[in-house]
Structures are given as structure tokens and as C-alpha cells.
């Protein structure tokens, strides 16, 4: 278990719109 004093690392997230773009490129790649 994690010692309570250790800070967690903030994971930067793309916005929903940026994710959608990622999604579109995924779809384009697939046949």
C-alpha cells in the first residue's frame, strides 16, 4: 500500500474534443 505522504502524479488529460479527434483518426486508420 502507498504511504499516505507520497503525492500522486497528476496525469494531464486531453479535452473531450481532443479525444474525439483522436477517435476520428483511429476510425480513419481502421478499414
Amino acid at each position, binding site marked *: *500500500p*502507498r504511504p499516505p505522504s507520497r*503525492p*500522486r*502524479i*497528476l*496525469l*494531464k*488529460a*486531453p*479535452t*473531450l474534443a481532443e*479525444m*474525439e479527434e*483522436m*477517435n476520428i483518426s*483511429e476510425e480513419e486508420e481502421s478499414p
Partner: protein
Amino acid sequence: HPVNIPRREKDFQGMLEYKKEDELKLVKNLILELKPRGVAVNLIPGLPAYILFMCLRHADYVNDDQKVRTLLTSTINSIKKILKKRGDDFETVSFWLANTCRFLHCLKQYSGDEAFMKHNTQRQNEHSLSNFDLAEYRQVISDLAIQIYQQLIKCMENILQPMIVSGMLEHETIQGVSGVKPTGLRKRTSSIADEGTYTLDSILRQLSAFHSTMCQHGTDPELIKQVVKQQFYIIGAVTLNNLLLRKDMCSWSKGMQIRYNVSQLEEWLRDKGLMTCGAKETLEPLIQAAQLLQVKKKTDEDAEAICSMCQALTTAQIVKVLNLYTPVNEFEERVSVAFIRTIQTRLRDRCESPQLLMDTKMIYPVTFPFNPSSLALETIQIPSSLNLGFLTRV
């Protein structure tokens, strides 16, 4: 020989281990191909959300930030994809709204942030994320939940809309009043059309169907309240707008019928324990229009009473109803021009928009109040029907 000894639940840590290459299979089986009307009917409410969160916990536990990121991205994109494909199906949209909210609550409940840990058991606190702070992802998922909510409202509106005018205004259910029609006006619906005509009962049945679906999916009670308030707003706005456009709807007997229908909607709210969700208040303009059809409209005192009664109606709406008002029999008179002028003069100083029709597309802002779950993650078992045999309970 290896012996398969079943582990006791207390030995599990509430995580699900999966291989990176199985991530696509996970979202495919759990999100894209899951039918809310099939397998999902027998699941514990929010199970897909718990499973995804338990997978996420494992990725966090092994300190693999890339695995955490790709799982979250695949989850969000798959939910969006299924809603794009089946966005007109109320059950699908309700199912993913409930699960997206549950996933959001899990991200908070197990974030390690004290503000969200107050109701946790000690064991639940031990299950907090170990390595990563997912606050930014929580925001993205909250944005997704807002999108799904708006889709749910549109979907529900498409189903309700064709029922409203027929059920709230045209169909007459009150004995004794139904026979009295405004003079010189013909009934709009023919006897042939009656078979396919929606009644107030159709609306009430539809509201109950929406409500029961949302309850089955484990939708947060606070969210159900917001949906119901929005439903009532749409019913009230569409009914009032049609009343304001149709002379045959502006009579004393229609006022009576509308008040009866409103009382039935209120009864429905009471029956579902939803009297305090603000839904009834959204009907206030319609209630006042119905009262306006029924009160006396002759003297200065009548004008004063109308002005103090119709606070939820705009001047344009009050004047329109008075202009359209059609007497039901020879003992009644049309509203005089002088009376309408008196009303207009009295209301001259009101600060309001000149709007006649209500905006039926308006959506109240939605919130997702934190709703932690008492469910212990280590007790969750995955039914074989979900085809997730590649996940390992840890």
C-alpha cells in the same frame, strides 16, 4: 499437480488485471457490444463502471501511466461511439449515463482526496488509487456525462413530443365536461383518429417507463430528479404553446381538463416520491393559463385578480389567452376589448421579455452530485455472460 483453491473474498484487493493487448477486447465486450436489454438486465447496477474502474486500479497499482491513459481514452471514446450508434435508444443512453456517472463517482471516491472519503469504510480507503491523480480525467468524464445527459433529454423529448398535445389538450377525460364544446367549433380529431390518439394515460405510462428504466440502471436519485424536472418542463411548455396558438383550446372546459391533467401529473410525482424535485413548479405557467380560462373576466376587480394570479405568464401570453378565449355557451360572453386594455395597462410596468411562446428546447443545467457507493470492490464477481474471462481478479 496445481490445485485450484478458490480464494476467499477478503484475499482480493478489488482490482482486475488485464494485458495491454486485451484492452480493445475489454471495451468491445463491455461497452460496444453490451446490450442493455439483453445481458445487462441482470447485472448489478453500475457493474460495467465498477469493472472498468477495477481495471484502472490495477493499471495504477503497477504504476503504468500509459496503461491508465489508454484505458481511460478507450473507455471514453467507446462510450461516445456507442452513443453515436444508438443515441436514439433511450435504454442505451440511460444505461451509459448511469455508468458514466458511477465511473465518475468511483474516480472521486477512490481518489485519495479526503473530501470524497468521508463515507468510505477503512477497506474502501485502502483501495484508493496509489500512484496517479486523475482530477483532469474526472473533468473530461464529467463533460462526457453532460453530453450524455443532453442526449438523454433529446431522446426522451422525441418520444414524448408526439403525445403531449393529444394527451394534455385534445383528449377529454372528464365526464360531463367533454360534451360541452365551444360554440361554433368542431372537434379536431375524427373518430378514426381516436384509435391512435395519445391520452394522458399514454403520457403517464411513458413517464413511468422512463423512470423504471433509469432506476433499473442505477441512475443517481438526484439525477433522476433533474430528468423528471426537464420532462415536466417540456410537457408544460409544449402544452402552453399549443394553447396559445389554438382558439379551440381556450375555453372554460379546456381549463378544467388541463387542471385535471396537471393534478394527475402531480399525483404521478407523489407516487414516485418526486414532489420536491422542482418538476411541479415548471408547470406553473400552464396552471395559471388554465386558471385564467376559468376565472371571471369582466370587472376591474377581475382584472386585478388576474394580474396578481398570473405571475408566471408574460403579458403577451395573458393577452393572447384573453383574446382567444371562446365562450362555451350562450350565458358567457367573449372577453371585451376594454377589459383586455385594462389588463395591459395594469401590467405595463412589468419588466419582462415580450415573448409569447416558451422555449421548448431549453435544458436546465445539470449537476452530478457526488454519490459514493457502499459496494466493496473485492466482492465484485464478473458474470461469464460478459465474456471477460481474460480479466483476473486480484
